[in-house]
């Protein structure tokens, strides 16, 4: 069981017998007033989105979903193919179902595929992945003043803001949940 204060982006809850994922979340509260939890919810089966405001007293069931570890094989005609390495069963996910994870799909990467009654719904990647920087502007010492960041492109084509000292060919760690750069990986 969840209460409204557990709501956050990415949480999966069950409403009216469908699984929903919280796609946007904001805590709103007039100073002396009730806490309100404004959510955008996406039906994980049909993709329908709607907004709903919850209060502290609201409670929800967790969506009972199954996760299976599968390996990313290839992308074809807008579908991403994953395979269960034990049963060799293959499933196909749409662009929508893969979502932001498409930025981090390294070849053969293992991911958790989310299933609801054997239908694939979504994907979750390891929290951290190490990727090679394939495109970066060189570090101009002159603009190393505090606070500067620069965009680089990594091997999956994803663009991310990093500190200015990161150079092409280096390996960096990215948090796949936030999409943010974490640290440089040596060796």
């Amino acid at each position: 069981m969840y209460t409204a204060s557990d709501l956050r982006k990415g949480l999966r809850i069950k409403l009216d017998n469908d699984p929903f994922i919280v796609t946007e979340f904001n805590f709103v509260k007039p100073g002396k007033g009730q806490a309100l939890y404004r959510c955008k919810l996406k039906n994980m089966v049909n993709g329908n989105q709607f907004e709903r405001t919850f209060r502290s007293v609201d409670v929800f069931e967790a969506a009972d979903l199954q996760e299976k570890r599968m390996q990313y094989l290839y992308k074809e005609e807008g579908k991403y193919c994953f395979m269960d390495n034990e049963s060799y069963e293959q499933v196909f996910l749409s662009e929508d179902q893969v979502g932001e994870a498409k930025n981090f799909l390294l070849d053969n990467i293992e991911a958790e595929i989310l299933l609801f009654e054997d239908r694939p719904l979504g994907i979750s990647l390891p929290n951290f992945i190490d990727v090679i920087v394939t495109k970066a502007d060189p570090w101009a010492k002159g603009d190393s003043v505090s606070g500067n960041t620069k965009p680089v492109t990594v091997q999956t084509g994803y663009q991310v803001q990093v500190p200015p000292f990161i150079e092409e060919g280096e390996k960096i760690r990215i948090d796949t949940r936030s999409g943010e750069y974490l640290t440089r990986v040596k060796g």
Partner: protein
Amino acid sequence: MTVDDSWKLSAKEDALRQRARMIRAIRRFFQDQDFLEVETPLRIPAPAPESHIDAVASGEWFLQPSPEMCMKRLLAASYPRIFQICKCFRAGERGDRHLPEFTMIEWYREGTDYRTLMDDCEALITLVARELGFDGIFSRQGREIRLRIPWERITVREAFRRYATMTAAEALRTNRFDEILACEVEPQLGMESPVFLYEYPAELGALARVKEGDPGIAERFELYCAGLELANAFSELTDAREQRRRFEETSRDRRRNGSPLYPMPERFLAALPQMSPSAGIALGVDRLAMLLADKSRIDEVVAFTPESL
């Protein structure tokens, strides 16, 4: 795994410098008017009972959700003009505009009512903005906000009539007041100039005096700018018996909602009869910093958030 994120901290330098300049200007504003700067304990035995504010426990006591209890005791002890810039703590409050630990500027004036505090707000924010280089106008999320005084004063009833899908009375009756206020009214408030939202329903001003000749209205206002709630003010209730009755009612509300209960602030209630008619206000420093630095998230105007510790 060690993660070096000092670059994230250093990226906040401009915002933090501006925040410091702002706090310096606030302090000078009050010192120049002969306000006494006070410090009251952050750890207190009994926070003011509020229906929707939860305190953070600290041992047997609590971290203050607001410095109100102690500051009013000073007021009752004949300190006529006092201010404090301090940390406040509210359990479970975290969002784009909320931190569970945040900074408040709170001030009190004896011998006056909340209208004087509206004048204070106008003068204070104009001064702070000027200190940051804004001459009566600044930009907030692509809109120009003009500070030319006087700022509009709009009653709660009128604001609901103008911006909401139901009247304030109807919203209250259906227990949707806060929701309608937050979702329909607030986003429209102060989009050209700051706005005072005032004359709250009496049940929404637990520490406020009711308006003379209209017991249904609390002498309470909130200051909004660009949809952002900045300050809350009251003409202070000085009737100890009435105050106790309201605290008990609030505590009953809390019990009904399953919220934690707090001891009755007895020493505050004992001091209340000595308090002259006064007015008091709390203004969120982080919110003001967000406003003037044109930041949409409170995280951008503080060095550390709970998540980054």
